[in-house]
């Protein structure tokens, strides 16, 4: 089903940046997936785009090419995620995890929590906050932990952490207030590659504990 971008989105223009939200009839469209589709589509007037779950921001070469962008035809049936990925997690890194806090907050043991995590299909919903930071959805309400009110000075790259409804993966070392639970066994960001992240928006992510054979 082809639609023009102008049919789908209500927009606001700030210099050469177009901010768009889906119109009422198209609220079912996954905006970060749409952004990924546009980003990869080699559209002549488009320099870059990024998104949250609510909004897309498209950078044009110049503001004068807005009409060209809005007339761009999108095959809505073609906006989908491609594959599934299993990430190995070390839930016992040398330091940094906050299992005592988690066990006290939701009254289950670390092992029970990890067993539940491994059964869930998470979904990479969007990047944001920091370079390569992944927001993963799918965490049941009963397993959610609020972010800390006192951010830590440094959370290491590739740390898996809880923040409200999301599980996050830190792309770089940075200060942060998410609750640390483990570390990915390999780096997800590679700045030497134009496709700098090894995961894609919409991808289904499963975690496998390094200690669970």
């Amino acid at each position, binding site marked *: 089903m082809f639609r023009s971008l102008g049919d789908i989105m209500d927009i606001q223009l700030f210099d050469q940046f177009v901010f768009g939200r889906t119109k009422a009839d198209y609220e079912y469209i996954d905006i970060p997936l749409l952004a990924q589709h546009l*980003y990869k589509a080699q559209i002549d007037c488009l320099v*870059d785009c990024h998104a949250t779950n609510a*909004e897309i921001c498209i950078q044009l070469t110049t503001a004068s090419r807005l009409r060209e962008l809005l007339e761009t035809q999108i095959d809505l049936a073609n906006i989908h995620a491609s594959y599934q990925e299993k990430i190995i997690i070390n839930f016992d890194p040398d330091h940094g995890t906050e299992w005592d806090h988690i066990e006290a907050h939701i009254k289950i043991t670390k092992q029970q929590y990890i067993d539940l995590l491994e059964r869930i299909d998470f979904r990479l919903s969007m990047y944001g906050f920091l370079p390569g930071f992944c927001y993963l959805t799918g965490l049941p309400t009963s397993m959610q932990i609020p972010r800390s009110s006192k951010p830590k000075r440094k959370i290491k790259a590739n740390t898996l952490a809880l923040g409200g409804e999301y599980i996050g993966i830190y792309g770089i070392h940075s200060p942060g207030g998410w609750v640390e639970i483990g570390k990915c066994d390999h780096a997800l960001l590679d*700045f030497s590659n134009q496709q700098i992240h090894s995961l894609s928006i919409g991808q289904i992510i499963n975690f496998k504990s390094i200690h669970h054979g």
Partner: protein
Amino acid sequence: MDDKITGFEITNAGLYSTIQDFGRNRSRFFAVPSSGVMDHNAATYANQILSNLIDHPIIECNLSGMGLQFHHEMNIALTGADFGWKLNGNTVDLNTKILVIRGDKLTGGFSHDKARGYIAFDKELQENKVLGSYSTYPLAKIGANQGRILRKGDIIKISEKKSLSLAQAAPVIIKDKNQDIIKIQKGPEWDLLSPSSKRKFCMLEYQISSRSDRMAAHLKTTEQLDLQEYPKYSNCIIPGMIQLNYHGELMVILRDGQTTGGYPRVVYITHDNLNLFNQILPHRNFKFELQ
């Protein structure tokens, strides 16, 4: 002085001096800010003086000049803030081509007019591009100088210019605009401001706080602004967006700023005015004017 060095050495790093160009394209998708020079006009002018391409990598000085010792003959140009630049102790002019030779020492102090100054070179800097840009982005440790700010003792190697030079046209002199007024347009969440905050937004005087950096400028004002409602979702942000946080503090997102955020974006500083804004010194008064 080391005879083997071809380039220049940092003898005084200043406050937050970095190598920048016009920044990255196609990185914001991965939440990597574009980075790049804070004042496109002053940086462009420096490169034009040397017939460089306008996005040739350049040193950006922040609030203070710096010290360089040259190990090779080259032309340089100094634009933007007047840091009282001296070459071997003698005052040198801004906005002109300056020939330096092996052993020359450039020094600069504090500025009383603008916040950012630029040093351009008519040579290639032997640095690596990351995601298509030399711009240093220290948080992710990417860009020139291994992704970190310049430090005393750093040596920047050079080679002959490979990029196509501009024709020797006279540089376009950009006249200094009035820094007292920064033009804005209403941001996506302007209507979340309380009626009284909307009324007084352009009447108040603002100052940039000294705890600002390349990611965001925090603004001080005499009266607190407030919201009548909070946004429900995280949104996209770009350089120039001004967010109002829940403590009533305004934050202007700058070149190294985050790409998403949850605070309401109440106004937007347009591209040309962001260049002007980025030259305002901390603690100097200015006002906003809605376009």
